[in-house]
């Protein structure tokens, strides 16, 4: 193996190592005015509601109406 071949092989290895460093997580680029933090899951995407948005909305609506004592009083009088 000639010295030139050895040098080109070493260069190829060095290039491969350098490129391997670029394969990981991409650096985050700051964008003005955009949320930079972690993503938040939807409140219905959990074990209780299993992604069922309709069920979640129904539960919240029932709680909402529970704050109205006029309707609660009528319901309890029945």
């Amino acid at each position, binding site marked *: 193996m000639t010295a030139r071949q050895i040098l080109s092989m070493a260069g190829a290895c060095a290039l491969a190592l350098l490129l391997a460093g670029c394969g990981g997580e991409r650096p985050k680029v700051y964008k003005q005015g955009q949320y930079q933090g972690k*993503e*938040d899951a939807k*409140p219905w*995407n959990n074990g209780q509601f299993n992604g069922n948005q309709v069920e979640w*909305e129904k539960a919240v609506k029932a*709680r909402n109406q529970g*704050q109205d004592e006029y309707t609660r009083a009528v319901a309890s009088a029945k």
Partner: protein
Amino acid sequence: MARMKFLCDAERCIECNGCVTACKSEHDIPWGVNRRRVVTLNDGVPGEKSISVACMHCSDAPCMAVCPVDCFYKTSEGVVLHDKDLCIGCGYCFYACPFGAPQFPQDGAFGLRGKMDKCTFCAGGPEADNSAAEYKKYGRNRLAEGKLPACAEMCSTKALLGGDADVISDIYRNRVLKRGKGSEVWGWGTAYGQPEAKPAPAAAPGAKS
């Protein structure tokens, strides 16, 4: 989807601080941090009015606009939340907020002023729902359990309403139309009893029976 809002009825608030206590207890809030507080106008003067104040989850939130690290975000339900891992505790949001909602703990990684803490509408933060990390940083996530904020649900007089803006507006509108004044106030009879019936006038002597 709903736009979550708070609405406080000053005619009903009795300054009991039940909402403040409920919030503190629900999220294990440390000393010196008050996500919610009761403000009384003309305190001690007859006719004083109190309202319960916390983050109002503004539609165009000034805290979001001024944050230099953009750690705020708005959920699809209109709740303004922030990522504490990004917050640098600079306090700009406190200056921008017209309600004094952002709070800063007196210790932690930033010495005297820690990372900002505020009302989350009991919706936690950007961590796995109902995880230990979420509870530690942001408190309990009641919204993910299909519940509304503890302060509103605990309010004894239902002065503080929280939830879908359309629904709580309807509740409040209906209340204003029906509540009346003085002894006509709805619930007066339950609280103080029905007004006593006046005794029938005694029959005049010699009058025909």
